[in-house]
C-alpha cells in the first residue's frame, strides 16, 4: 500500500495530483510547541553542535561577563498567526517577548535587533502597521533597535511575515536567580491572569465559531522587575510563562517542588479563558502568556512584592498562587478534593480535543 500511491479515485474526475510519502524523519509542527519534542530537538541537534558553557544551561537569556560590565543577551523568533489578534500584533509581541526574556533574567533591556523575513506580495500597509507596532512598543519599553536585517522569500514560502528580535540588556545588580535557590515555604507569585494570550490567538486563528471578549495579555514586564529591585536578595527565581504557558517554569531544571492550590483570590484565570480552554480540552497551564511574570520569592516579601506589582497597570491582577515545598521534586496542582495533579509540559501542539 505504501510507496506506490495507489489508484486514483475512481469516482472523482476532480482529483488533484497526488503525492507519495516516504519514511524519512521530518520536522513536525510539534517540534515548535515548547514541549518535549522541542526540548529533544534542542538537546540532540543544537547543543551537541554549538555547545558552550552559557548555551548549555539553555537560558532564555545569556548572562555574559564582558570586561568591565555584566550584560544579558537573548534572541527570539516570532511566527504568530494571525499577524493581528485582539490585544496586539506580531510587532509588539516580538518586542515584548524579547524585552521580557531580558527582564525576567534580572536585566534592564537596552538594545534590540530586528530581523524581518517577509513574504513576496505582503501588502505595504501591513508592513507599516507591524513596524509602527514595533516602534510604539520599543518607545514604551525604553529600548532602541540598533541593528537589523530584511529578507524576502517567495510567495508561499512564509506566512506573511516573520520576525527575529535579539536583545541586549544590563544585569541589575543583586539578582541571583536560580531554581536551585528555592526553599520550602517560598511563595509562588504571578503578575496576572494566566493563559489569555494563547487562548485569544487560538480563537482568532482557528475557525472555532467563538465570540469572546478575550484579549492577549501581550505587554512588557520590565517595570514589574524594576518594582522588585528593593528585594533582589529575596527573589529566588523568575520566568515569563510564554511558550508552553506556566508549565515550563514549573518543569525547569534543576527541578523544584511546589503545590499550587490555585484557590487564591483574585483567581489567576479569566473566566472566558477558562471556558474556552475547557470547551477545547486544553489546559490553561499550557497556554502562553506574553505579559506575565511567574516568580518565587521569600515568604517575608510576598505582600511587599504583590503591592508593588499591583501599583502598576500591568500588575493589577498579581496574586500568590502557591508555595514551594522542597528544593527538588515536582510542581503539582492541588485539586479541590485534596488530590495532586503533576504539572507537565505540553505534548506538542495545542489542539482542540473531543475526548
Amino acid at each position, binding site marked *: *500500500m*505504501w510507496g506506490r*500511491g*495507489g*489508484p*486514483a*479515485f*475512481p*469516482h*472523482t474526475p*476532480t*482529483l*488533484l*495530483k*497526488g*503525492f*507519495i*510519502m*516516504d*519514511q524519512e524523519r*521530518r*520536522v*513536525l*509542527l*510539534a517540534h515548535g510547541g515548547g514541549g*518535549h*519534542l522541542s526540548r*529533544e530537538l534542542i538537546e540532540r541537534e543544537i547543543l551537541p553542535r554549538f555547545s558552550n558553557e552559557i548555551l548549555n544551561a539553555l537560558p532564555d537569556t545569556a548572562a555574559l561577563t564582558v570586561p568591565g560590565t555584566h550584560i544579558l543577551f537573548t534572541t527570539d523568533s516570532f511566527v504568530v498567526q494571525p499577524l493581528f489578534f485582539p490585544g496586539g500584533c506580531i510587532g509588539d509581541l516580538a518586542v515584548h517577548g524579547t524585552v521580557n526574556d531580558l527582564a525576567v533574567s534580572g536585566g534592564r533591556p537596552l538594545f534590540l535587533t530586528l530581523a524581518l523575513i517577509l513574504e513576496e506580495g505582503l501588502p505595504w500597509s501591513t508592513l507599516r502597521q507591524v513596524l509602527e507596532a514595533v516602534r510604539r512598543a520599543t518607545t514604551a519599553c525604553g529600548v532602541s533597535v540598533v541593528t537589523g536585517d530584511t529578507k524576502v522569500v517567495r510567495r508561499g514560502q512564509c506566512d506573511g511575515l516573520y520576525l527575529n528580535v535579539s536583545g541586549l540588556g544590563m544585569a541589575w545588580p543583586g539578582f541571583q536567580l536560580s531554581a536551585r535557590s528555592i526553599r520550602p515555604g517560598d511563595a509562588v507569585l504571578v503578575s496576572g491572569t494566566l493563559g489569555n494570550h494563547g487562548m485569544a490567538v487560538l480563537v482568532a486563528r*482557528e*475557525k*472555532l*465559531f467563538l465570540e469572546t471578549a478575550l484579549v492577549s495579555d501581550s505587554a512588557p514586564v520590565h517595570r514589574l522587575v524594576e518594582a522588585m529591585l528593593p528585594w533582589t536578595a529575596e527573589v529566588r527565581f523568575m520566568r515569563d510563562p510564554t511558550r508552553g504557558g506556566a508549565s515550563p517554569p514549573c518543569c525547569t531544571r534543576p527541578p523544584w517542588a511546589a503545590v499550587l492550590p490555585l484557590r487564591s483570590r483574585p483567581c489567576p484565570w479569566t473566566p472566558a479563558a477558562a471556558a474556552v480552554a475547557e470547551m*477545547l*480540552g486544553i489546559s490553561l497551564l499550557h497556554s502562553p502568556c506574553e505579559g506575565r511574570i511567574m516568580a518565587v520569592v521569600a515568604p517575608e516579601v510576598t505582600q511587599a512584592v504583590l503591592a508593588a506589582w499591583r501599583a502598576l497597570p500591568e500588575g493589577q491582577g498579581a496574586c500568590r498562587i502557591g508555595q514551594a515545598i522542597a528544593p527538588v521534586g*515536582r510542581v503539582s496542582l492541588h*485539586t*479541590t*478534593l485534596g*488530590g495532586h495533579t*503533576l504539572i*507537565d509540559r505540553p*505534548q*506538542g*501542539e495545542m*489542539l*482542540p*480535543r*473531543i*475526548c
Partner: protein
Amino acid sequence: MCVTGPGTIDAALTLAERGAILVTFGDMIRVPGSRLSLAEGRAQGADIRVCYSPLEALALAQEQPEREVVFLAIGFETTAAPIIGMLDRAVREGVGNLSLLTALKGVPPALAALIQDPECAIDAFLCPGHVSAIIGANAYQFLAKTHHIPCVVAGFEALDILHGIRSLLVQHIEGQARVENPYARVVRANGNPRVQALIRHYLHPEDVEWRGLGVIPGSGLALRPAFQDFDAAHRFGLQVTPGRVHPKCLCGDVLKGKIMPSRCSLFGRGCHPDHPVGPCMVSTEGACAAHYKYVSTEGATE
C-alpha cells in the same frame, strides 16, 4: 480514540496521499498508524485539517467543491451524534464531495464482550456519562439483570466520580446488581431518542476490530448500504485492514486491566509519551501515559 486500529489511520493517510482533504478531531493526530501518524503524514504534505466540530468538514466541502473531503469518523455514541447530525445535513443538502471514513463504535457490545472474558473478572461498571446521555441508562439493564453486574452512570466532576464509585461499592457490599443514575441532570433512562433514531437511520451494527481487544461482534457503527456514497471506503474502493500493531505492544491487556502498564516490555523503553508506540501512551489520560507520568517519574513501583 484508544481503540481505533492502525488500519484506520493507514486508510486515512492513503486517501490524503491520493489528494483528499482529511478532516479529523485533534485527538487522532498523534495516534500511531502501522507506519506513520497523521501528524507525520501532514509533515509530508498530506492535507490534514483539525476540527472542533464535524460541521467544519461540511463547510469545507461546500467551499471547495473541486476537492474530495473525508471526515475521519471516530468515537462512541456521544461523538456519533454530532457526526450523524452533520451527515444528515450533508445528505439533505446533497453535498457530493464529502464522505466519512467510519470507525464509530458502540459501548454496550464492548461491555458485553469484557464480561465474557474470564481473565477480566469484572465486578462492576462505572458507566460513561456522555455516552449514556445518548443511549440512556436503560442500555445497561442487561448487565445488571442478566449478568448481575452493578452499573452506575457517572458525571465528570471529581465528586460525580467519587459518588459513582461509592454507589458501586455499596451495591457490591450488599450483593446487589442494579443500574443507578446519579448523573440524572444529563442522563435519562431512555437517553436521547432523537439521536438514537438518526443513528439507526444512517448506521447499522457490524463486527469490528478494536485495537488491542480483537473483533467484538456488533460493536461497530457502519454506514447503511443506502448511504454508501458517503462511505469513504466504498467510494474510493479502499479495503480497510486491521493494520500492523507493534508485536510487543500490550495496550489490549492494559485496557482490559489485566496488567499494569509497566509490565509491558515497551513501557519506557521505546514507548513513551514523546514517541508513543501504542494508543494508551498518546493522550495524558491514557493508562500508560498517566502511569509514566505519575509512577515512573516518582520512582515508585507498582
